[in-house]
């Protein structure tokens, strides 16, 4: 769910850019550092970005026949940690704006904030929390995906509500409207992505178990920083 070009007022655009900037700059710093230490990480990060983009070419199965696409911010958060995702997410959003006409440049700040910052951070928080409480991997991943999508959807609805408050019931009423309208597609999508996440990680655990363990995604392995483990997997 991307806010289209042009519909936020200049002030709001500026505010959301300002809100997103620290996260993106932080992420970009980390990326620059990682790449300086390991030039080959460039390729892996680019692949992650491309993969996130390309996910929108994969249709999710549905009973009804309507089509929806996974957003994949949850997967990214687990595999690459939220700061890196803030940067990668913004790149992907620029690509989506210019290659698919989804979203826009003036609304890039707002979209980055909801999709590349709020989503990954909230999803990742749920993931860590579940793991800390001793929950199973599958649950952690399910909650991560669901809440990454869910928070994105809520933040977007509020961003729109602030821009277009209801004449009678104000911002809260408008938020209710947007939440209601988008719920039709976004809640099933969030749940679907949660399920898909479990299946995906189960598949990966069978096919690429050791790599995932070294990334610290599956239990029973070292919980190293993303860059170190990326190097390890690069050698496999």
């Amino acid at each position: 769910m991307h806010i289209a070009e042009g519909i936020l007022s200049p002030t709001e655009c500026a505010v959301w850019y300002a809100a997103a900037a620290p996260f993106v700059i932080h992420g970009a710093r980390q990326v620059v550092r990682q790449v300086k230490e390991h030039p080959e990480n460039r390729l892996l990060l680019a692949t992650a970005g491309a993969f996130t983009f390309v996910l929108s070419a994969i249709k999710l199965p549905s009973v009804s026949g309507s089509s929806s696409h996974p957003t994949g911010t949850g997967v990214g958060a687990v595999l690459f940690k939220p700061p890196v995702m803030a940067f990668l997410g913004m790149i992907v959003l620029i690509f989506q704006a210019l290659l698919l006409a989804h979203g826009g440049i003036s609304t890039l700040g707002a979209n980055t904030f909801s999709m590349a910052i709020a989503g990954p951070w909230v999803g990742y928080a749920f993931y860590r929390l579940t793991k800390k409480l001793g929950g199973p991997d599958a649950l952690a991943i399910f909650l991560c995906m669901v809440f990454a999508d869910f928070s994105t959807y809520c933040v977007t609805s509020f961003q729109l509500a602030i821009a277009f408050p209801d004449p009678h019931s104000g911002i809260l009423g408008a938020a209710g409207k947007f939440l209601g309208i988008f719920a039709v597609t976004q809640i099933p999508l969030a749940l679907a992505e949660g399920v898909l996440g479990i299946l995906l990680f189960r598949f990966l655990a069978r096919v690429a178990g050791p790599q995932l363990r070294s990334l610290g995604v599956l239990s029973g392995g070292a919980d190293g920083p993303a860059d170190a483990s990326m190097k390890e997997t690069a050698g496999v």
Partner: protein
Amino acid sequence: MTITSLDDAAWDSPWRRRPVGEKVALSLGLVATALCTPAWPGTLFVSVAAAVAILAFARIRARVLWQAMCAPLVFLALGGVSVLVSVGTAQDPTAVWWHAGILSVGPVSARQAANLVAHGLAGTLALMILALTTPMVDLLTWMRRFRVPDSLLEIANLTYRLIFVLLDTVATAHEASRCRLGDAPIGRLNGFRRRWENTAALMGSVGIRAWSRANRLNDGLVNRGFEDSLLTLPVRRAGSWRFKAVTLLVIAGSWAACWPVAGRLWR
């Protein structure tokens, strides 16, 4: 629209060889005009200017533009409807045109909805000037001059190239899966459960292939002398004063023309 049709149009467009800065100025200048001027008549001027630039000067086929606009139009329609219908009890029931229960449509919400659609349409059209004439990579190369760290631009550049490689992989893997009934397994609810598993397997295997592809591309680049930056030849482009002048004229004109009609310059 396929996932690459905007990009294909951009590569084939006659404006491809124009300096990126000129196209960015025109496109983002119009976006800013659409954002800041009063919806009436600012967005109309912007929409017309953008459409003329795209269809008449950059010679993009109308079909491509229409396909590109489909997704944003759906969003604008949804957004427009949700803004148009307001909820809650109005203080003054005569001030609304229509109401049913807590839902109502009145002049305020109608103006808001019209604003949303007009701004959105004009903004998206203006952005499409850039999207339909400038391949992403040109833009990224151009951004070097703003002292964006090279490694970030290089990641973006590689992302662009890998998107196409991965799209191919996704398409073929998807097809291979369909050939073996991966999308239509037999079982309850059209094999609902297996379909989900098959989708996960597809995503997973594409992910793993993407990973190994990244490693192989890295090897390939190291072979060619890659150490720490991905330097390539700068592209030569000839600027045009006429283009710059027209850009300035169009933007300033749209802005100025708002004064007599709307009585103000800001939205």
